[in-house]
């Protein structure tokens, strides 16, 4: 069995940062179905098991995120085509120094339970999320807000929140309610892209009903989105129905969406073939071979690049010094024939990467990796010889054996072996949990596969969390003061273009150090039944429900 389906399949492929909304920019192959069809009716969509109660502050994976996206509107909405953030619940978000933000909320927006959305709903929700003892998965998104540190548990051992470890404050000093519809945010350091981040699920407002009974809320969340949740039948289905009071710009066309929960994508795909299911959000490997899905579902499939990147990371130098020399790293990168592997193993469902940032985000610049990411076996060999050859006895590339990574890692190793003449072995680690534990404990030597799925559509999200000194997902312990400095400057820049340019300069530095080898950008492929029309994919790999309708 291919695992807890998407959790492992997707989780294994990339960070399960929640896919929040749409963003275009990337090329789309055949992603245009004219939006005709009638309004109303109901559709069924592939779903999977949410990993946590359905609270936006506690959901960081696609299974719950796909549902929450429809139930909760956010301050900012990402355009499905261009990824551009537009104000949704927010009337305005203003700042003069990238550190003090004033956010005005539109009046008259109602939660599904009839209460009105007010500024305090945001402040309360954010404080709750940031407060350590609440253990909210998305709590770390509030790190930039002033006072975050005082809300974290400081103790050691089993329960860091017990006794003296209890946080010294319960609310963020950086948040203040000004009036019913206005609040202010103060960040510890300058954050130029804060407004872009506000479209992420973690920043959704919570109604008073949540604080009265968080557990019941997690079963039946209440938001302000275009759909409200009717029922969550555990491990079977999640039923959404249209929110009649929705006044925003992104209403859906169908009256009812049922997420049918599958453990595997194969049966879901077969259900689409038999018109028992309307949309399947990924295509099983068996149907990708020779593009079988295109003949199975003619004119009823689409593919689009999404904000996902696959990389190969080198173990920190203190763990494995054999890969410390950037020339060795560059030589290995040049020895990988990404194009052929994509064709033969992935059936062209990926895009060979030319840098560290996904093409779907604002600020993307092509070819940042330069010739280091272009397959050139002669040059690779010459570069390795120049570095004095490979010091260890063989190159290793580790992967988690439960996620379907065996084929491409072995093909990658063969490519390296042939080009460099150094033995390369793809090593499977029993499962994803063990794999991540070994990386976290710095026991993994050699190279290992890594991936990232963006939280919000910004170039910053592909650089800071992954490669800044001491960042939470910096698996290779990369540290470059110049790179860090450029990121800080970019965060402080008041002009968007200037910020992007600084981020691009930072990314360009990576080509010299090669802390990670860029491999592939992700693509999402979907298929749908005879009954629906207007299915479009957002850059987050989700369905754009504003367009889907029955024929």
């Amino acid at each position, binding site marked *: 069995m291919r695992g807890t389906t998407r959790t492992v399949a997707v989780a294994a492929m990339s960070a399960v940062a929640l896919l929040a909304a749409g963003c275009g920019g990337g090329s789309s192959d055949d992603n245009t179905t004219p939006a005709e069809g009638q309004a109303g009716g109901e559709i069924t969509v592939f779903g999977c098991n949410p990993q946590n109660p359905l609270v936006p502050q*506690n959901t960081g994976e696609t299974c719950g995120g796909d549902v929450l996206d429809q139930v909760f509107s956010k301050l900012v909405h990402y355009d499905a085509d261009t990824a551009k953030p537009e104000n949704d619940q927010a009337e305005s978000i203003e700042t003069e120094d990238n550190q003090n933000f004033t956010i005005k909320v539109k009046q008259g927006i109602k939660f599904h339970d009839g209460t009105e959305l007010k500024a305090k709903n945001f402040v309360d929700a954010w404080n709750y999320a940031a407060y350590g003892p609440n*253990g*909210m*998965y998305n709590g770390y998104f509030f790190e930039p807000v002033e006072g975050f540190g005082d809300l*974290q548990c400081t103790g050691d051992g*089993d329960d860091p929140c017990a006794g003296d470890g209890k946080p010294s404050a319960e609310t963020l000093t950086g948040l203040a309610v000004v009036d019913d519809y206005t609040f202010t945010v103060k960040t510890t350091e300058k954050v130029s892209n804060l407004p872009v981040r506000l479209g992420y699920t973690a920043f959704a407002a919570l109604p008073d009903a949540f604080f009265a009974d968080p557990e019941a809320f997690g079963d039946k969340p209440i938001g302000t989105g275009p759909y409200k949740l009717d029922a969550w039948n*555990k491990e079977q289905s999640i039923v959404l129905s249209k929110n009649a009071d929705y006044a925003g710009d992104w209403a859906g066309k169908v009256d009812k969406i049922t997420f049918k929960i599958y*453990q595997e994508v194969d049966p879901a795909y*077969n259900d689409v073939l038999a018109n028992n299911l309307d949309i399947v959000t990924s295509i099983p490997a068996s149907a990708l071979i020779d593009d079988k899905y295109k003949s199975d579902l003619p004119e009823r499939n689409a593919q689009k690049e999404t904000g996902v990147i696959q990389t190969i990371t080198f173990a920190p130098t203190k763990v494995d010094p054999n890969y410390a020399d950037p020339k060795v790293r560059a030589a290995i990168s040049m020895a990988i024939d990404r194009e052929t592997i994509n064709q033969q193993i992935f059936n062209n469902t990926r895009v060979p990467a030319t840098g560290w940032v996904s093409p779907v985000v604002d600020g993307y610049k092509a070819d940042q990796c330069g010739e280091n990411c272009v397959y050139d076996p002669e040059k690779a060999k010459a570069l390795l010889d120049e570095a004095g050859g490979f010091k260890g006895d063989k190159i290793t590339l580790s992967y988690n054996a439960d996620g379907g990574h065996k084929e491409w890692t072995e093909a990658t190793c063969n490519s390296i072996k042939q080009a460099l003449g150094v033995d390369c072995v793809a090593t499977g680690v029993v499962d994803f949990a063990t794999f991540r534990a070994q990386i976290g404990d710095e026991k993994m030597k050699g190279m290992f596969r890594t991936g990232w799925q963006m939280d919000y559509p910004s170039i910053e999200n592909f650089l800071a969390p992954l490669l800044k000194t001491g960042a939470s997902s910096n698996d290779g312990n990369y540290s470059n003061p110049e790179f860090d400095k450029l990121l800080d400057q970019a965060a402080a820049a008041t002009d968007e273009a200037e910020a992007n340019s600084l981020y691009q300069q930072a990314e360009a530095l990576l080509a010299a150090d090669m802390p990670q080898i860029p491999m592939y950008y992700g693509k999402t492929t979907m298929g749908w039944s005879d009954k629906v029309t207007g299915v479009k994919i957002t850059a987050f790999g989700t369905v754009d429900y504003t367009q889907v309708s029955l024929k």
Partner: protein
Amino acid sequence: MGTYILRRVLQMIPVLLGATFLIFAMVFALPGDPLAGKCGERPCPAAYAAAFEEKYNLNDPLPIQYGKYIGNLAQGDFGETYNGIKVSEQLKERYPVTAKLALMAILIETIIGIIAGVLTGIRKGGFLDNLVLVSTLVVISIPIFVIGGLAQYFLGVKWGLFPVTVTSGEATVYQLLLPAIVLGSLSVAYVARLTRTNLVENLRSDYVRTAIAKGLTKRRAIGLHALRNSLIPVITFIGFDFGALLGGAIVTESIFNIPGVGGYIFRSIRSRDGASVVGAVTVLVLVYLVVNLIVDLLYGLLDPRISHD
């Protein structure tokens, strides 16, 4: 007979306790950390991890974790999965589906298997015998995911005779029919072969010859004497198979997306979800014990020489 049953029921208690502890310890001993896979490619946020570990007692040593678990279990509380779903509710929803599926499969394999076995056994070497031998050989040698996948594609997707998947918890007999046939197909082959071999063996034995010599019709000699004795190993197999089908229908469950127990246990093991595994397996062990008891009692009915007094 009464004391025998009582003794067997009492024996179940230490077996159950031992089984739960062993399973608990085995899940506990698995490498890796339940949290590591939960947060994707990034380490879990510290606050989230702390709350998670606290909730599921992950910081306690094994005996204390087990003690807490058994304490709750004694009060009927099976605990929660790592997704925060009550295990007892999952079991309540999943066991009926799985039991229905397993019973249908058992019914199919028993009826078809025994009839095929008898027909081939009494005409050894005939056309039917060869046909059954060859076709069962084919079924045994094809992996179940191939049979299941082909059946689903042709009978479900292509020709629309059966529903493609089950998905819902209130699965109807019709929805489960195709999966049950797939699930039972392998066992049909075993039952048929087991019945045939034993029947052939017994037909040659002295007591059958005596019965026929006494003037019994062939039909009575086979049906009453030979077949009854021949069914003992078959019943043993079916009893064992019922238990195996309950927990082991993983492949069939995943092909037809049946919300059953097998896949549930499999996924729980992968995510180190101790409470789910132990809960589901405890019920499974209980079913195994009861079915074995029934099988043992059936021996006595089939062959009066096996006495339980």
